[in-house]
């Protein structure tokens, strides 16, 4: 089984739209994983049904028992995250600031501190109208550990793909280059970079590719909104050639992207004549290159 991850560096380049259209053509060959757990949008197109929902626990935060606390203040002294403050002749933990490192728990002379597992979100396994299974998740607001939730989504997708004898996992990643992106790249076989024709798009592409190359995963690129700035598009093409990134194709600026999303459809459902041949070719291309 091969894992294909779609990322972009910059947000709003059309990643999820492209992922949904690929899911449409790949249909029964794939399990789809929405790894953008922070702002998961794929379900708005794939319209999942019959979801199995599970809570996801990851990491801990400290809790101080005021009855046991002797107010020695040691925990506050050693906490590097300023997450402990005096409160009513004892100390308490500021939940939002606590990193869950456990240092206070280890050092407290009165064993007044416990570490409580955190429910950081939930993950779901659903059916979609394309016939492929969708694994997706929702991270709680302000939650840390999104990398671990991404890893969970991926491992669940893998288990489903194995059980359903699917050859591919198609994963929609999140913007940026930090923990959720790193988690979505780990173990991936092929990366599709979706960029847009703008200076910001190119700058973000370079940083995300620098990350991808650290993982030594082969990558391909789709340039969206390619006619917005022909000069930048040509710079992107040069960058791809120079860095041996397979250029899958250019997509011109198309209102269909917004129209399709507004109707809860993928591009192909919006305009089959135009988009089906393009994404059929992309999917073929991906399978040949992997």
């Amino acid at each position, binding site marked *: 089984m091969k894992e294909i991850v779609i990322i972009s*560096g*910059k*947000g*709003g*380049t059309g990643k*999820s739209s492209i992922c949904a259209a690929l899911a449409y053509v790949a249909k029964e060959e794939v399990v789809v994983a929405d790894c953008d757990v*922070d*702002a998961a*949008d794929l379900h*708005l197109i794939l319209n999942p049904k019959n979801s199995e929902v599970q809570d996801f626990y990851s*990491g*801990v935060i400290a809790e101080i028992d005021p009855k046991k606390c002797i107010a020695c203040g040691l925990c506050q002294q*050693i906490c*590097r*995250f300023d997450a402990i403050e005096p409160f009513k002749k004892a100390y308490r933990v500021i939940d*939002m600031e606590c*990193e*869950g*490192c*456990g*240092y206070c728990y*280890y*050092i407290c002379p009165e064993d007044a501190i416990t570490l409580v597992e955190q429910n950081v979100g939930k993950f779901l396994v659903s059916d979609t109208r394309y016939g492929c299974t969708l694994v997706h998740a929702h*991270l709680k*607001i*302000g*939650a*840390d550990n*999104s*990398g671990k939730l991404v890893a969970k989504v991926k491992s669940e997708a893998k288990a489903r793909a194995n059980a359903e004898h699917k050859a591919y996992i198609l994963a929609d990643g*999140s*913007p*940026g*280059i*930090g*923990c959720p992106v*790193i988690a979505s790249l780990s173990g991936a076989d092929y990366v599709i970079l979706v960029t847009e024709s*703008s*200076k*910001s*798009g190119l*700058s*973000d592409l370079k*940083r*995300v590719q*620098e*990350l991808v190359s*650290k993982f030594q995963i082969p990558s391909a690129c789709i340039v969206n*909104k390619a006619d*917005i*700035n022909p*000069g*930048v598009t040509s710079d992107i093409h040069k960058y791809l050639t120079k860095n041996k990134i397979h250029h899958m194709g250019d997509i011109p*600026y198309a*209102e269909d992207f*917004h*129209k399709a*999303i*507004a109707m*809860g459809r993928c591009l192909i459902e919006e305009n089959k004549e135009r988009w089906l041949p393009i994404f059929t070719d992309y999917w073929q291309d991906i399978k040949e290159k992997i």
Partner: protein
Amino acid sequence: MRVAIASGKGGTGKTFLAVNLALKAAETQTTLLMDLDVEEPNGGIFIQGDDAEIHKVTRAIPSWDPGACNLCGKCISWCKFNALIKLGEMILVMPPLCHSCYACSELCPMQALPMEQQSLGEIRHLKLGKLDFTESKLDVGLEQSSPLIERTLELADELFADKELQILDSPPGTACAMVSAVKTVDYVILISEPTPFGIFDLNLAVETVRQLGLPFSVVINRDGIGNNDIYDYLEKEGIPLLAKIPNQRKIAEMYSRGEIIYQQVPEVDEALEQILSKLRSLS
């Protein structure tokens, strides 16, 4: 006054709004713009100058001293982030996973894990007239953006506390990075677009800002694409609509070239004027 420009969804126009708003504000008042999208900062594409000052930012990471270590392995059981592993007769430190909590280093009975400074990223500072601009960039391969965001905000407190307006370009999403940027401000402007993706992600951002107890309003970018559901959403939730920016291909083209837009598109200038007058009424 410190204002954050934030959004749940990426690519809704945070940097576009932050940059144009800051430049317009700096025509009349001292303004600080901080690009805190440390994973993919783009403010520097639009605001350029030659004499940037670079602040290198480091953080402390344990380094293993094989001479002192007795391989008891306690550090590995203490580390909640799996940043230490034992490989044969060696302890390996995985810097991207380390949260710099100091637990292993200070609890180690042999003092075999002294903390050492390692690069986290850099903050570029540029001054252009009344505008001070900082861009913070995380080293590629590091996982956590919050420490660099916090360091930038500390620097702002040190150097720029006197600026009349401080605008902060937040990272996308609603996870820890966004919260660490937004929690320090007086007011939040959420920017979204009129599509189902826009509404869904805006709603997450709204819940986050409400949880933080911060006053906020919404700017709708690319008005005219998608549909009107987002305006119904705002009305139903009682959220003030601060301004609308029309969807125009020429705006996308100017943005793609790294240009400043408000001087070229009157509708954008008007929207910024509305936003600035709201901010003035608050301060």
